[in-house]
């Protein structure tokens, strides 16, 4: 009898580290267990959160040894998805296991700028906006006092993310693939008894980056990177005769707009998440990274959505990464109680996890959450063959 497939989510505080242990076959058709690792990251580095990576990576090693990772997937370029392995190597010199093959989101490809200059131009605009917003937040003392701003600033830091992504590109230099919807990945993975299909992102990520409207109250011009990094931000004070209460209300809304600018940056990267369906023994498992509504709508427009037995809940349970009911019905139909994993942490992000969203998912699937275990520990979901 075939063993179940096991999906293990580690509590990395706020981030994802998902290990999928797949009962598979070797080239001769003999049973062989293969390992799929998705992400490993955490956004709490500046507040000591990186300590958890030692325990998590060691636990992954313990779970798979003597084997290595057959396929590693970096869903998207956010610190809470990419930082863990690089941080581990920083403190432990090297990873305790080998990684044979790597998938990364299409827009992380080194030649992406040459192939999709428009997308990169839009992405760079967001990066410049990030630097200026970071300085504005610092000038207003919000980068340390407002947890929501702190979280967004840290998670979207382009410099830190770039360093981690560069490291991930070195894990399996000759077998690193930058994947997107429509790509034939049948020969780009090691599994003999499973079929993988990439549902998202679109290869051209221009739409993800360019659709964001400027933050309505942002006083920032369209700064180039250099100007943005040296932006001389000051906190305004009211003029004589101006209604002070109204003035500070306006200033506060401008500051909130700063958050909105950061959210725009955050959403764009989330929508570049690799979303893939892992079909094994007549069971479908869906891993969605942090894909948000735009990505879901595109998947639906491409008629990709179909019922699955398992869902890795997107974006740590936020309301903007789980699709509306009519789309949710397509992947988790009511009455066919599926299974889902939530990898999250309370007080990590404003409104995450979202209780209403979880309620909607729980009406369709049994949800297991990393919130129920200590950091460094894990929860498992098993899916029997169909």
């Amino acid at each position, binding site marked *: 009898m075939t063993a179940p497939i096991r999906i293990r989510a580690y509590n990395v505080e706020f981030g994802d580290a998902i290990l999928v242990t797949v009962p598979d076959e070797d080239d001769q058709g003999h049973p062989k267990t293969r390992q799929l690792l998705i992400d490993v990251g955490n956004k709490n580095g500046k507040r000591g959160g990186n300590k958890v990576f030692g325990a998590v990576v060691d636990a992954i090693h313990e779970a798979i040894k003597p084997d290595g990772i057959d396929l590693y997937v970096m869903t998207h370029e956010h610190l809470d998805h990419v930082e863990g392995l690089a941080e581990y190597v920083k403190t432990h010199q090297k990873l305790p296991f080998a990684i044979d093959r790597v998938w990364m989101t299409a827009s992380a490809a080194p030649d992406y700028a040459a192939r999709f200059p428009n997308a990169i131009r839009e992405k760079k605009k967001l990066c410049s906006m990030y630097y200026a917003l970071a300085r*504005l937040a610092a*000038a207003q003392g919000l980068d340390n006092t407002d947890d929501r701003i702190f979280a967004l600033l840290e998670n979207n830091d382009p410099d830190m993310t770039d360093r981690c992504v560069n490291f991930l590109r070195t894990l399996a230099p000759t077998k690193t693939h930058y994947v997107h919807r429509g790509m034939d990945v049948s020969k780009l993975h090691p599994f003999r008894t499973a079929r993988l299909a990439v549902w998202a992102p679109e290869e051209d990520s221009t739409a993800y980056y360019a659709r964001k*409207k*400027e*933050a*309505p*109250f*942002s*006083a*920032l*011009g*369209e700064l180039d990177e250099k100007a943005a990094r040296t932006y*001389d*931000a*000051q*906190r*305004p*004070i*009211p*003029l*004589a*005769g*101006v*209604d002070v*209460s*109204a*003035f500070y*209300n*306006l200033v506060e*809304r*401008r500051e*909130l*707009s700063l*958050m*909105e600018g950061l*959210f725009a940056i955050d959403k764009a990267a989330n929508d570049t998440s690799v979303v893939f369906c892992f079909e094994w023994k007549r069971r479908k498992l869906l891993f969605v990274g942090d894909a948000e*509504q*735009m990505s879901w*709508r595109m998947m639906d427009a491409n008629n990709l959505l179909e019922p699955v037995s398992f869902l890795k809940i997107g974006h740590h349970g936020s*309301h*903007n990464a789980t699709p*509306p*009911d*009519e789309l949710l019905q397509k992947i988790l139909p009511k009455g066919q109680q599926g299974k889902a994993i939530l990898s999250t942490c309370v007080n990590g992000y*404003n*409104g995450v996890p979202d209780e*209403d969203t979880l309620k909607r998912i729980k009406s369709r699937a049994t949800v297991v959450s990393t919130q129920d275990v200590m950091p460094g520990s894990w929860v498992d979901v098993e899916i029997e063959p169909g």
Partner: protein
Amino acid sequence: MRVPIIVKDLSTQERKGIEAKDGFEEHEIANEDYFLDGPVSARVAVLDFDEKTGACRPVPLTKDRKGYEHGPPPAPNSPVSPEYLSVSVFGTVHKVMGIFEEPDTLGRRLTWAFDRPQLLVVPRAGEMANAFYERESRSLQFFQIDDKVHHRRVFAAASQDIVAHETSHAVLDAIAPDLYDAMTPQSLAMHEAIADLVALHCGLRYRPLSDKVLSDMDGDLGKASSTAFSILAAELGEARDSRANYLRDISVKRGLPGARADYAPVATTKPHELSTVLSGALYCVLLQAYSATRADLETKPTPQQEKLIVAYGDGNRQHGIWRAALYLTTQRFKRFVFRALDYLPPGDATWIDLAHAMHACDNAYHPDADALRSAFADELVNRAVATTTELELPSLPSADLIAGMDLATLLGSDWAAYEWVGRHRVELGIPDKVPFNVRQRLDVKKKVYHRGGKTASPRELVIKIAWEETEDNPAGLAIASRRSVTRGTTVAIQWVEDGEKSRVIAHVTSYDAKRDREARDELLLRLTDEGRLSRARGAASKQFASSELYAEVAGDVMTLKGGARLLHIVGDDT
């Protein structure tokens, strides 16, 4: 205080060959308690946030040779310095407020829809081809972009059209605050159309421009479909898209689906695009009124009109007729459109409600001069906005409605107002057993002009009453299965000191049309589909993402808050 204000904008001035000295006008601001550097008055404060640092710096007010308190003049070759911009936008905002407060418009002092005395105005709000009014921040925001073709920085605040338009949103919010929370596309489009018509009105009052246009058209404004009057925000429009000559042209001939064949159909829930049907209709009325007035002046001017022709003519009778006709038409049109806004019923007022309000208001003081009313009705019917039957005004309630009622008590006492409304809810059209809310009670004194130069200053008591009605949401809208829509009624009473002679002169109640319910369905579904409408956690006005709209939900009933934010903030522009 007198301040210089930029008229129309630089592009229009260049296109029409208007000399630099005529590119601005001096506007006198009266009726304010104080003026301070900023500029700041009791009701308007300009906040110039430095583009480089975000710091807020006041623009000093200086005195010129004439002794007027005056903003600093523009630097050579730089007519839109931050200082000049601040002073100009300050003056323009006050100018628009003044248009509404004039005795022959609303005849009352405006107070903002929000709970503070000052409207904050940010002339350099950031890098975007946009401008907007937002009640939650009590502010007008004007943005700026580079015009890469003409190699200049273009400020939305340097366009009188744009400043007038956005200020009108704030003013309309003060007059009809429910429109801000409307979920009926026509209600939102009405906000937009009125704002465009105020911008048009400002242009019509600008003598150097009107002289050029009248001269180019040989006094016949209908000669070309589009003129420098009908084109709004030329400079920003050009900077945003070098192939465009403007941001808006209100002369377009458009109608709703089912309109006469020569009107281009507009089937959308987007307020900007939809608004062009209404503004286009009213623009046509304006042209017809001008044409009729000009013909009158040419053939049978009254002695007073004759004086006006001579005064405007500068020795040229033909020019005097054109200018006088334009002046008289502009004033009459202002009274026809803007004065009626106080008669709008509360809630999601539709264009039929507006037509009823305009008809009632105009009829109250000009019962024998129905040319504008008929022209507007024809335009609405041609554009399939309404049928002739729908435009008919219900008959006024009987005199019993105010019999024995002391109007001063009705004005001053909340208890008396609720008691009176409760007693007359059937005559007032309030549905049975529905709780109602007595809204504004306005005491206004208007100036009314009659043919032959006679004027009158009637006093009015205007009472507004609102209530909520629920209706089903369309299938597929996950937020809630039902929604609450605000509706209402407005009663205008001519207030004569001898109470026996006071009489109801207008009664306008929300008109319920199936197509408006369907349009609400369509709007909510579209916003949801576009990911721009979500359920509020707490009060919608306190929600975080200012680029989204929020629905407040209680039980399984929702209401949309801040729908007017679609007008510019949330990016629903065409």
